[in-house]
C-alpha cells in the first residue's frame, strides 16, 4: 500500500490552526539529569496541546488487515478522542472517516463492527457510501435548490491511511511524513512480531475494551521500557502461573533497550520468557520449533526476541508484548482517563489450536481479568491521581536509570543500551514527545534518528545465504 495514500478528498478535512507551543516545555523535563515533571500527566493545557501536536500528527493504529477481509467490512475505533470508521473498499484499499455526520454532527455508526453497503445517519437519514460519498437523502431536491453540492458533504476522511505488514495506521495530518518514514529503522524490530515467516499475522478473538483512570503516558512508558516493575508488581502472578518469582532480569547482561524516534522495545534473548507466563507448554514448544526458521529469515539475534521477556511501544500509544501476544492501544479520554483496547495477535501460519491457546492465554494474563494486568491498573491510576495534590505536582520524578549504558559499537539499528532494566527508552519517548509539542508543524520536528537501513532491509523474501 502506498504510503502517501491520501484518502482522496483532503479538502474535506479542515486542519486545526497551528498554535504556539507551550512556553514552559523545557521546564517539564531534564533528560540528561533524568528528571520529569508530573505536570505532563495532569495539566489540561498540556493534554489539549497533545491532541493537536502529538495525536493530530502522528500515525495512530486503526486496525489489523485481518479484521476487514471483505469489501464493506468496517469497524469503529478512535484516533485519540475522534471516533473513526475504518472500512474496506470495493477496490480492496482501506479508507477511514470521522464517525460524525456532516449535517448536524450525529454519530453515524453505533456498532463496533460489521459489514454494510452504506452508512445511514439515524437523525435525518443521510446516506453515505462505504467510500464516504454522500449518496443522497429524503427531500434531496430541496437541498439542491438551496445550492448544495453533494460531493462537498461526504464523510470527513482521515487524511492518510497506510499499512505496514498487516497493521493499518491513520494520520490526520496530510503533511505528515509517510508511515514508513515515521516508523523508520524501528521496522527492523517490528519485523520480529510481524514478519517471522513471510505469511504475516492476524488478530484472533475480538477487541476487549476497558476504562482506566490514568494518563495515557503512564502505561505507554511502562510498555516502552519498564520490565523492572514486573519483579515487584507481578510477583503474585508469576507465582500463580510459573510457581516462582519473576526472574531477576536486571542481572542478565544480554538484554537491551532499543529505541528509534521515540518508539522503543526492551528485551532479553531467552526466546520464550514472556510466553512462559501463559503457563502453556504447547505455546513454548511452538516458539522453540519456529525459532530456527525465524533465524534464517531475520538472523539469530532477532529470532531470540520472538517470545522473550520484553515489551514494546510504538509512539505514541500502541503497545504489545511478544510472547503473550497482547496488542493494545491506550486511547486518551482526557488527561486522567484512557480507554484500553486490547487484541491478541498470532502468526497466520500457526496451527489453529495454538492460535486458540493464545486467544485464551493472552486474556488469562493480560486483560482486565488477567492475573498479570490486574496489579497494573492500580499502579497506573494512582501514579496519575497523586498529582491532584498541588504540592505533589511541584515535585519531579526520577527517570535517570541507565544513563551510562549506551552501546556505541553495535550493528543494531537505532539507539541501543545495555540491560533491559533501564529508563533509556522512557527518555527517548519523552524526547520525541517534547519535539512534537515544541513544533508548529512537521517541518519543525527534528529527525533525531535518521534511517541507516535501506528499504530492502525490510523485504525478507529474497533468499538469504
Amino acid at each position, binding site marked *: 500500500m502506498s504510503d502517501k495514500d491520501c484518502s482522496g478528498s483532503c479538502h474535506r478535512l479542515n486542519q486545526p490552526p497551528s498554535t504556539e507551543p507551550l512556553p514552559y516545555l523545557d521546564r517539564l523535563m531534564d533528560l540528561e539529569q533524568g528528571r520529569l515533571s508530573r505536570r505532563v500527566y495532569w495539566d489540561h493545557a498540556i493534554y489539549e496541546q497533545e491532541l493537536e501536536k502529538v495525536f493530530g500528527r502522528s500515525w495512530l493504529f486503526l486496525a489489523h488487515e485481518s479484521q476487514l477481509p471483505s469489501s464493506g467490512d468496517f469497524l469503529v475505533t478512535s484516533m485519540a478522542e475522534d471516533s473513526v470508521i475504518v472500512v474496506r473498499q470495493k477496490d480492496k484499499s482501506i479508507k477511514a472517516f470521522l464517525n460524525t455526520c456532516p449535517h448536524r454532527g450525529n454519530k453515524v455508526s*453505533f*456498532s*463496533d*463492527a*460489521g*459489514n454494510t453497503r452504506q452508512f445511514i445517519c439515524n437523525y435525518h437519514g443521510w446516506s453515505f457510501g462505504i467510500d464516504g460519498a454522500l449518496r443522497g437523502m429524503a427531500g434531496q431536491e430541496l437541498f439542491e435548490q438551496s445550492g448544495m453540492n453533494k460531493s462537498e458533504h461526504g464523510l470527513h476522511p482521515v487524511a492518510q491511511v497506510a499499512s505496514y505488514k498487516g497493521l493499518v495506521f491513520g494520520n490526520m495530518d496530510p503533511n505528515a511524513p509517510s508511515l514508513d518514514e515515521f516508523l523508520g529503522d524501528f521496522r527492523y524490530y517490528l519485523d520480529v512480531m510481524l514478519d517471522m515467516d513471510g505469511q504475516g499475522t492476524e488478530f484472533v*478473538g*475480538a*477487541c*476487549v*475494551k*476497558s*476504562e*482506566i*483512570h490514568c494518563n495515557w503516558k503512564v502505561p505507554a512508558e511502562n510498555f516502552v521500557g519498564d520490565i523492572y516493575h514486573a519483579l*515487584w*508488581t507481578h*510477583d*503474585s*502472578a508469576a*507465582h*500463580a*502461573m510459573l510457581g516462582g518469582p519473576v526472574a531477576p532480569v536486571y542481572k542478565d547482561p544480554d538484554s537491551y533497550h532499543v529505541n528509534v524516534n521515540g518508539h522503543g522495545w526492551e528485551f532479553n534473548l531467552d526466546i520464550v520468557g514472556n510466553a512462559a507466563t501463559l*503457563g502453556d507448554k504447547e505455546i513454548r514448544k511452538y516458539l522453540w520449533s519456529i525459532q530456527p526458521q525465524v533465524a534464517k529469515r531475520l538472523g539469530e539475534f532477532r529470532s531470540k526476541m520472538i517470545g522473550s521477556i520484553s515489551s514494546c511501544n510504538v509512539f505514541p500509544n500502541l503497545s504489545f508484548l511478544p510472547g503473550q501476544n497482547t496488542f493494545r492501544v491506550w486511547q486518551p479520554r482526557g488527561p486522567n482517563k484512557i*480507554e484500553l483496547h486490547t487484541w491478541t495477535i498470532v502468526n497466520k501460519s500457526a496451527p489453529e489450536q495454538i492460535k*486458540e491457546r493464545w*486467544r*485464551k492465554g493472552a*486474556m*488469562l494474563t493480560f*486483560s*482486565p*481479568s488477567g*492475573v498479570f*494486568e*490486574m*496489579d497494573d*491498573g*492500580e499502579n*497506573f*491510576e494512582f501514579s496519575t491521581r497523586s498529582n491532584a495534590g498541588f504540592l505533589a505536582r511541584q515535585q519531579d520524578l526520577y527517570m535517570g536509570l541507565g544513563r551510562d549504558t549506551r552501546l556505541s559499537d553495535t550493528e543494531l539499528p537505532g539507539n541501543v543500551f545495555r540491560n533491559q532494566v533501564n529508563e533509556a527508552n522512557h527518555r527517548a519517548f519523552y524526547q520525541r514527545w517534547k519535539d512534537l509539542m515544541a513544533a508548529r508543524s512537521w517541518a519543525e520536528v527534528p529527525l533525531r534518528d535518521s534511517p541507516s537501513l535501506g528499504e530492502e532491509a525490510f523485504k525478507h523474501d529474497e533468499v538469504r545465504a
Partner: protein
Amino acid sequence: MSAVLDERPVDAAALQRISAFLLREARLLDTEGWDEWLALMTEDIHYWMPAVENRRRVDKLGAWEPGRGAYFDDKHLDLSRRIARFKQPTAWAEDPPTRHIHVVSNIEAFHTEVPNETRVYSAFVNYRSRGERDNDMLLGRREDILREEDGRLRIARRTVRITQSLLLSKNLNTFF
C-alpha cells in the same frame, strides 16, 4: 437458550435447595472463601464470561460468541491459577482487601435431558469497593448447569453476561 415453551421447572423443594446453593456461593465470594468456592466447581467446569460487542440486529455475528473476546474462558486449572494469585501475599491489588458484595436474584431452575443436571438462570449485582472512592458495579445474568454428584450440587458450566461493552473497571479481581 431453550425455547420458553419447552422449559420444565423443578419443584419447589429443588428450587429452594438450588437457591440456597447460589446464595452460599455468593457468601463465599464475599468473604474470600476461595478454596471452598473452587470446590463448588466440577472437574470439567467451563467458566465463561464473554466480552460484549455492539452489533446491529441484522448482523448475524451477534454481540458475543464462543471463540471471540472473553474475560473468563476458563477450565479448572485456569480458575485455580487465578485463586493462587489471590492468595499470594504479594497480590498488591488485594492488599488492603477489596470489599465485595454479590447479590443474586431472579433464580429459575429447569430440568435438562441429563437426569442429574439442572439449568439454572440468575441475575446478579457485583459491587466492589476498594480504598476510599473506587467503587465498581457490574450487573448481569448467569446461565449455569448444576450437576448433582455424590449428593452434592456443583457447577459444571457457567456463562456470565454483563451489560457493559466498555468495561468501566480497571480490573476484574472478582468472580461472578
